[in-house]
């Protein structure tokens, strides 16, 4: 048995990532062709929206007391089994078959192509599979974009809380700034709106300016982020937590007091922006920019923490005074880290505003900030892949638990407490996925012997 498992592991581990991605694309086309039929056949009533994960909890009966709840559990299990069958037949088998067939050619391809090109191919394939898979059900795209926004939030918060070891608890405040600034700009520039009147620019500009506006939102958030960076020179730990929380409250309260942008009623009109963009070229712009946003965030933060300056960030976490003595300019490093972090929170906010289409100051409370905290700690402090993983898992989990309403939040906070008690280091424990599976094995990098003219250094 153990032999068999090891054999399977070896076989699966030998398949490069790209083959899996192409396999998933193939599975998506299987779903397009037969998903609905198969879903009806096994009694799911059509293709499940999100692998059957998000719909399963709605089987629970929450309205008629404990007995009704307990009686509805078998129907939940029944649904889960059916969804599993669906997932295996429609996604699992086609993915594995195609990946197995393509494994060899792709290994060869990866060793033949330059690394930047393989990287590009991976990225494009990933995007295509998300897009095609997502377009089948509108809800999927929404969840995928939520995941993207949360990944940006989590990784940027991880820079402060994980790598730098400070305790920032007001990340949603920066998100709010980014969301409001970019949403106001896009609505003013590109749509007919009650507040701003006719669009200020022609529709064609929207495509070019949209990413720039997201950046402007990020910059606005970064400027507010400086507000937090300066008190952090003097205060650490608990006190910094207070500062960040009060910044979060202040931002929310300030937005509520500005009548012009809707005050506590919130601000909307971002759906119109998306329509304007789609009217020029009809592709899912928001998905594209969320995807690119995630990639850029990951790249920037990964490169930052790997740089000399970024090593200073980790040094501050380990011992601030020792870091100062070892010629780390702690003030400069802190300002930089806070600015980068709040910048990306602002970008995430801008994307969030356009994904949801409606923003409201009470969205960006300490609850939102703490949600991001949970994601950081679940994934593991100082692990980017951990953040990506936990942001994805928790976002889907929150969608799945939606029928539980308030109790969904209870479960999340309970998880945070249990996490702190039993596994403080999170899923990844400060490690990256590449510490377990090498890039060569994933087929993202040519192995040393395949690189021409490479000679291992003599010890």
């Amino acid at each position, binding site marked *: 048995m153990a032999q068999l498992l090891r054999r399977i592991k070896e076989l699966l581990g030998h398949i490069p990532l790209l083959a899996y991605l192409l396999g998933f694309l193939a599975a998506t086309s299987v779903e397009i062709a037969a998903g609905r039929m198969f879903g009806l056949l096994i009694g799911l009533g059509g293709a499940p929206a999100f692998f059957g994960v998000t719909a399963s909890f709605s089987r629970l009966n929450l309205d008629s007391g404990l007995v009704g709840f307990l009686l509805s559990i078998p129907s939940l299990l029944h649904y889960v089994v059916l969804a599993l069958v669906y997932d295996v037949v429609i996604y699992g088998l086609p993915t594995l078959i195609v990946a197995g067939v393509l494994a060899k050619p792709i290994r060869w391809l990866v060793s033949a192509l330059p690394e930047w090109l393989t990287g590009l191919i991976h990225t494009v394939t990933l995007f295509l599979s998300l897009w095609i898979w997502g377009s089948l059900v509108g809800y999927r795209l929404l969840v995928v974009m939520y995941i993207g926004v949360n990944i940006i939030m989590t990784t940027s918060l991880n820079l402060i809380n994980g790598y730098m070891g400070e305790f920032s608890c007001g990340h949603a405040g920066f998100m709010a700034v980014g969301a409001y600034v970019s949403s106001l700009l896009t609505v003013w520039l590109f749509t007919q709106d009650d507040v701003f009147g006719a669009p200020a620019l022609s529709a064609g500009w929207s495509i070019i300016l949209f990413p720039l506006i997201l950046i402007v939102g990020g910059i606005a958030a970064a400027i507010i982020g400086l507000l937090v960076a300066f008190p952090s020179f003097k205060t650490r730990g608990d006190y910094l*937590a207070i500062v960040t*929380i009060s910044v979060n409250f202040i931002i929310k309260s300030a937005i509520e007091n500005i009548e012009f942008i809707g005050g506590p009623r919130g601000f909307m009109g971002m759906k119109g922006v998306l329509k304007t963009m789609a009217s020029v070229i009809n592709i899912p712009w928001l998905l594209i920019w969320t995807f690119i946003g995630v990639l850029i965030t990951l790249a920037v933060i990964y490169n930052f923490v790997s740089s000399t300056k970024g090593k200073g960030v980790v040094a501050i976490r380990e011992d601030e005074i020792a870091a100062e003595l070892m010629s780390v300019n702690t003030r400069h490093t802190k300002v930089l880290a806070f600015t980068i972090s709040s910048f990306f929170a602002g970008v995430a906010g801008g994307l969030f505003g356009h994904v949801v289409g409606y923003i409201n100051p009470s969205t960006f409370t300490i609850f939102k900030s703490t949600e991001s905290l949970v994601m950081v700690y679940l994934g593991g402090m100082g692990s980017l892949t951990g953040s990506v993983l936990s942001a994805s898992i928790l976002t889907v989990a929150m969608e799945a638990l939606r029928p539980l309403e308030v109790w969904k939040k209870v479960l999340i906070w309970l998880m945070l407490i249990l996490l*702190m*008690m039993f596994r403080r280091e999170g899923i990844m424990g400060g490690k990256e996925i590449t510490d377990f599976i090498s890039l060569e094995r994933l087929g993202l990098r040519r192995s040393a012997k395949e690189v021409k003219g490479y000679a291992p250094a003599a010890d």
Partner: protein
Amino acid sequence: MTLAFFFQQLLNAVQLGSIYALIALGYTLVYGVLLLINFAHGDIFMVGAFVGYFVATFLVGQGVGWPWGFILTLLFSMIFTAMLGVGIERVAYRPLRTAPRLSVVVTALGVGLLLEHVSLGALGASRRNLPPLLPETWKQPVEISILGENLSFTWLKVLIIVISILLMIILQVIVRRTKAGMAMRAISYDKFAVPLMGVPIDRIISLTFILGSSLAAAAGVMYATQYPVIEPYMGLLVGWQAFIAAVVGGIGDIRGAMVGGFILGFVQIFVVALGQFPALSFLSSTYRDLVAYALLLIILVVRPTGIFGVARRQKV
């Protein structure tokens, strides 16, 4: 500003400040002993108000009125909430006593949010009113004439101020005059040496949570008699203000919590009061929280240890 108006606002400020001070004391006591910001404390205040609501509803239903109804409500709420506070410390904070401080702070935050959403799930978001425990006339303004000015006040406000000050005196006596209080002060002075002197540190920490939580419960009941809003988010709204008060006064210092509470009460009441003058009409009541948080930020930047706090030197 007429004298009568000033006097009225002063009374409002002292009353709000004394409620803030009571809650702030809970933050400060725990911080003094455990060096932990108990983010769940605001929600303990909320639970106190809810327990008070249920006890009061029961008692009024049984026909128990003033004064026993009020006293029993206060007592029951304080006892139950003290048990909750001790329970939270046992279950959530004690296992983490040797863990990095950040984890405990995160846990505290999580416990607070958990309390909030459990009560939201179990009790719903609707606002509740405390049933009438006091004679209705206590809420009516009473006018007295001093120095030719008609000053008006309500007995309820006076009652809240008197009870708060009484509780603060009791706390002072416990902390200053009893052995347990001495142990508490000693632990906040040196956490490592004191257990070696035979002080039962766990029991003292439990006592700290009992004191802090029961003060919060008293504040909750009194807040609910004055303002008719008992809802799951009141811990977030009022508790955080009290927390600011604790930080402004210097968290960890008992005098600081009291002074901070009154300062915050004054600032908030007078921001709203000044807004009633035409020249300052831009100061609407929605600026109340904004001003409070701005005050907090200024204090933290200028003097992070608060008014009474002493900076802890970090040894290299």
